[in-house]
C-alpha cells in the first residue's frame, strides 16, 4: 500500500444528495424549448470522479487489470469501456481523470492502490467537486464556439479527444465521447456560472435542459 489514507465519502443510506446544479435549477430553472430544439443540455450528476497521478508506465498495467481499459498515453486522449460508462482521460503526462458510475470510485481506488503497492502514485477522489454536463444537438458545436477557446471543428476534435481549456472566464474539461455528444466537466463552485452561461449563449438555439 502506498501509505495514503483512503476514505469512502459515500454512504449507501437514503441520505439526500444535491448535485452542483441544485441551486441553479431553483434559481434559473430548466428551460424547455417550445418547438424542436437544436440543442440539449443534461447534467450527469453524482458520477465517480478520480484524479490519477503517476507515471504512465507505473499506472498502465494496474488500470488495465482493474478497469479493463488501457491508460491513454497520448496527450488529449479519451478512452472508454465498451458500455461508455467508464472512461479515462489524459490530463497531463502524469495525470488522468477517471469517471465511473457513482459509487464505483471507492472500490476502484482501493483496488488500484492494492495493485500498485508501493509504487509512487496518487489517487484523489474529486467526485463531490465536479459535475458532468452533456451537450447534444446540431447546435452544440456552435454553442461551444461561443464558450471555449479550443478549436472544436471535427477535423481538430474527433471522437475520443478531451482537453482542459478555457470556458468563458472559468475552466472546463471538454470531451467528445461520441459523434453526437460533447461532455463538459466543470467544477462545483463554478457550475452555476457555467450553467447560466450555457443558457444565455444557447438561448438563440432554443436550448433544452433535461433534468
Amino acid at each position, binding site marked *: 500500500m502506498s501509505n495514503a489514507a483512503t476514505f469512502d*465519502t459515500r454512504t449507501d*443510506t437514503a441520505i439526500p444528495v*444535491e448535485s452542483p446544479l441544485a441551486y441553479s435549477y431553483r434559481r434559473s430553472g430548466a428551460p424547455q424549448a417550445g418547438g424542436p430544439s437544436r440543442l440539449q443540455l443534461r447534467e450527469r450528476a453524482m458520477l465517480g470522479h478520480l484524479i490519477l497521478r503517476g507515471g504512465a508506465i507505473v499506472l498502465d498495467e494496474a488500470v488495465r487489470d482493474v478497469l479493463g481499459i488501457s491508460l491513454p498515453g497520448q496527450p488529449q486522449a479519451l478512452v472508454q469501456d465498451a458500455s461508455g460508462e467508464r472512461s479515462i482521460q489524459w490530463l497531463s503526462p502524469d495525470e488522468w481523470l477517471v469517471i465511473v458510475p457513482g459509487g464505483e470510485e471507492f472500490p476502484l481506488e482501493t483496488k488500484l492502490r492494492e495493485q500498485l503497492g508501493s509504487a509512487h502514485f496518487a489517487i484523489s*477522489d474529486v467526485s463531490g467537486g465536479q459535475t458532468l454536463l452533456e451537450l447534444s444537438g446540431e447546435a452544440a458545436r456552435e454553442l461551444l464556439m461561443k464558450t471555449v477557446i479550443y478549436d472544436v471543428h471535427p477535423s*481538430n476534435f474527433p471522437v475520443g479527444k478531451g482537453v482542459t481549456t478555457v470556458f468563458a472566464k472559468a475552466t472546463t474539461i471538454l470531451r467528445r465521447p461520441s459523434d453526437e455528444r460533447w461532455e463538459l466537466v466543470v467544477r462545483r463552485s463554478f457550475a452555476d456560472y457555467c450553467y447560466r452561461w450555457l443558457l444565455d449563449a444557447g438561448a438563440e438555439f432554443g436550448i433544452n435542459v433535461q433534468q
Partner: protein
Amino acid sequence: MSQSKQQVYRLNTGGRIDRSRTLSFTFNGQRYQGHPGDTLASALLANGVDIVNRSFKYSRPRGIVAAGAEEPNAIVQLGSSEAAQVPNVRATQQALYEGLAASSTNGWPNVQRDLMGLFGKLGGQFMPPGFYYKTFMAPASMWLTYEKYIRKAAGLGRSPMEADPDNYDHFNQHCDVLVVGAGAAGLAAALAAARSGARVMVADEQEEMGGSLLASRETLEGKPADQWVARVLDELASCENVTLLPRTTANGYHDHNFVTLHERRTEHLGDTAPVENGHRQVRARLHRVRAGQVILSTGAHERPLVYAGNDVPGNLLAGAVSTYIRRYGVAPGRKLVLSTSNDYGYRAALDWKEAGCEVVAIVDAREAPAGDWVDAARAQGIKIITGSAVIEAKGSNRVTAARVAKIDIGAFKVSGPVQELACDTIASSGGYSPVIHLASHTGARPTWRDDILGFVPRLVKGVQACGGANGCYALGDVLAEGVEAGIKAAAAMGHAVQTVTLPSAERLQQGSAVALFQVPHEKPTLRGPKQFVDLQNDVTAAGIELATREGFESIEHIKRYTAMGFGTDQGKLGNINGMAIAARCLNRSIPEVGTTVFRPNYTPVTFGAIVGRHCRDLFDPERYTALHQWHVERGAEFEDVGQWKRPWYYPQKVNGKTETMHEAVARECLAVREKVGILDASTLGKIDIQGPDAREFLARIYTNKWEKLAVGKCRYGLMCKDDGMVTDDGVTSCLAENHFLMTTTTGGAAAILEWLELWHQTEWPELDVYFSSVTDHWATMTITGPEARKLLAEISDLDLDRDSFKFMDWRSGKVAGVPARVFRISFTGELTFEINVQANYAMHVWQTLFKHGEKYGLTPYGTETMHVLRAEKGFIIVGQETDGSVTPEDLGMQWCVGYDKPYSWIGKRALTRSDTKRENRKQLVGLRPKDPKVILEEGAQIVLDPKHAIPMPMVGHVTSSYYSPILDSGFALAVVKGGHQKLGETVYLPMADGQTHEAEIVSTIFYDPKGERQHV
C-alpha cells in the same frame, strides 16, 4: 415632420438598389426616401442633402466625400430611442432601413445655419495647430474655466444615457486560411483555397461581397464583373469548408495570426436587434479567429488631391462618384469637374457622362495623358485640360465653381492663368493608397514604393497581401495575385489546390501617374485659402507647414501637433498626403519623414461587441458553496472574497426591524462565545498531497517544522515567498504517513497550488509527491462554541472525548449518517469541530445540524463575525495583517519558524538580509483604545507625536479593528515600528474629522490569553 423630399439625384436606371421598394428615413428631422440597397450616404445624396455635418474645429459645412470606410465627414447619430442611440455612425457604411432616424453630430442651432461656423470663419486663423499650447496659461487658476469652454466643443456624437438593450457575443474560430476582403483578389484567393479543401473564412466589411467589382465598368469573360462575383459566391457558399461573413470587418490583426472580425448582424435592420422566436438576436458578433494563413485582400483607398476649398460639399473622391452612380444609382450632382493625376480617375467622368450628366472638364495634372480610358473620354467628347489641376473649389455650402490652372509640380507653383469653370461637383483622384492597416498592426513597418506612389505592407510569417492591398491594380493581375495567394496559403496548410482557371479580364493600356499630393495655389500655403488634408480633424496643409517650421520634423510629431490621423477614420484619406506635404516642406523624401502606422481598430467597434457576453451577471463568475441556497434563504448579506460569494452576516428581523450589521455581528459573536455558532468554511483552499516525500516538501515550503507531525494530527503552517514575506497560511493535516491535506486561504487556493507545482516541477523534481486540488470536493462546516461537542455528539458516531479527540487532532466517522472527516482546529479560540463531507451531502448535514442545534442556540455566522472572533485571539488574516512587506518575525510568529530545519526553506535566507533583520521594523501588536467606546478606523495611521507638523511621521497603521461584544469594547490589531518593544506605550491616531484617538499598545491576544477554551 415635413413631407418627404424627392430623390432628385436618383438615376432612373442602374445600380444594385431595388427601386420597386421605398424606405423612408429621417435626417435632422426631415423625412426622406431611399431604396433597399442604399446606404444612408447614397440615400442622402439621392435626396440632394449637401451638408451632413459641421467640422470639428472650424465648424465648416461638410458633405459626403467617399463611399466607404474612409469617409471622414458623414458621421451621424443614429437611434430612435434613448437606449438605442448609436453615436458616430459612418453614413457610407450604414445600410438604409425603414424608419432609420439619423442626425448630424455637430452644428448649433442646426447643421445648415451654424453659429459656431461664424466663429470658425472669424477665429480660424487664430487657431493654428497647437494654439492651445501657446495660450490660456494666465492666470494659472483659470485653466479649468477655459477648459470648460473648450470641452463644450468636444466630441462627435453622444453616448446613450440608458443601458444597451442588445446582446453581443463571441465566436472562437479556427481556420486554415482567412481571406480579408472579398473583392476581386479576395474572391480569387478564397476560390483557390476553398477548392483545396482547406478550412477557409472570408470576411468582407460591406453589405455585399464583391468589392469594386460590384461597381466596375470592366468586364470578366466579356460579361459584367458582378456576374462572375455571383458565380464565385455561389460556389463558395456551397462548400462546407468555407465560412462567408459579409458585413464583417477585420479590425485587428494580432500576434501569431490572431484576427478579430466584427460581424454586424442586425445593424442593417434597425437600431436595436429584432426579436426572433422570442429571443432578441445578437446585434454584433466578434469572431476571434486563429488562422493558419491570412490573406490580406483589402484593396486600396483612393487619395484625394489637396487643393483650396476641397472641403466644400460637392468635393468627392473620383472613385466614390463612380460607386454612387454604378452601385447606388445616384449621380451626386449635375456638372462635374474632375481633377486627376492618373488614368483611374477618368472612370468617374465616363460614368458621369453615361449617367446623362454634364462633364465640364477633366483636369489632368499630366502634360500628355494617354491610355484607354483617356481615349474613351476623348471619344466621348469630354474636354481634357492637361498639365493642370483644380487649384481651388469655390462655394460655401456647395461647390459652385472650380478654379483651374496650369501647375508646375516640381517648382510647386501655379504656372499659368486661372480659369473658373462653373460646376457643382469636383471629383479628384491622386492615385491609390493600399489598405495596409491590418499588416501594420503587427508592428511591421510598411515599405514605400515609388512606382505606385504608395506604401505596401511588410509582412510577418503566415500572411500574404494581394491585389490593391499589395499595390496591384490591373484587374487581370489582381485576380492572378489572388489565386496565387490562395494556392500558397492552402499549400502551407497542407492542402493541394486543384486547377483554378482565371476569368479573362480586359487588358487596358494605362498611362503612368504623376506624383501630386498638394496642389499649389497662387498664394503661398500659409497665406492662401485653407487646403484640407485631414477633413475630420480640420488639419490643413498650412498647419502641416507650420508644424515643420516649428521644428516638428518626424511624421509622428507632425501628426500629434496637428492631430492629423487621430480621427475616427484614422487618416485613411489624409495621412499620405500629409506626409507628402511634410516631406515637401522639409525637403525630404516621404519615407524619410516616416512611415504611416495604423493601430487597431481598422474601423471603430462598439464596446459591447468586444465585451460580448462577459457583462451584467456574466461579467465574472460567482463561486458558490454547496450551501449557498441556504444562505440566500436565510437572508445573508454576502461578501466578495475573490470570486466567491461568502455569507458576511445574517441579519435577523427583530420586532419587525432588520438588524444592522453591527447588531447582527454582536449577536453572532456572543452566540459563539457562549453557545455554538456555525460557519460555512467550504471556500478554504484544500490540496491533497500524496507521496513518500510529501513531508519533506512541506518542510521546504512552510516556515515551520513537519517532520514529527503524526498521523491524525493537524498543524498550522505559514508560507513565505523567497523574499521572506508572508504569502499564505493554513492548517495542514497528516492523513497518513505519505498523505497530507493542506488548507490555504480562500483567495490563495489556486495560486498556492501553482506555487507548489512550480517548486516541484522546477527545483525539486526529485521529490516524489503529487498535488491535487480537492477544494470543491469537500464542504466544510465549522461548529464552534462551548456547546459544540454536545451538538456534534447527538448526530455523530465519533468518540468526542476531550482526551481521545484532542485539540489539533482529526478523526473520521459519520456525521448525520454521512462519512466525514472532522478536524479539531479553531479560528475562534473556542471548542471547534470542522466537519468535512463530500459536497453533495453538505446540505443534508448542515440541515441536520440545525435540526439538532436549535436547542443549543446554534447560530450561523458569517465572515465578519469570523474576523472579530479571530482578532480577539490575535490570529492574522493574510492580506489584512500582511501586505507583502511583513515577515513571520514582524508578526511575532517566531514560534512558527523552524530556524534549524536542515533544508533552507523558502523564505529563510531573506530573513537575514540587512533590512529584514533590522530593528524598528513594523511589528504586529494589539491596540486598546483609551476610550473603550472608540472603534478605531481600519487603515488609521499611528503617530507618536500628534502635535508634529505635517508631514507627520507615521509609525504604523491599524490592520483590523472591531467592537468586541464579549469584552464590550473596541480593540484593534496594528503594525507599529518596533512595536514588540513598546507594549504598554501610548500611541495616537489623528483622524480626518480632527479627532485624535489614543490607544495603548498591548498583546495581540485580547480574549482567553492562555488559550484554554479551545482545549476544553
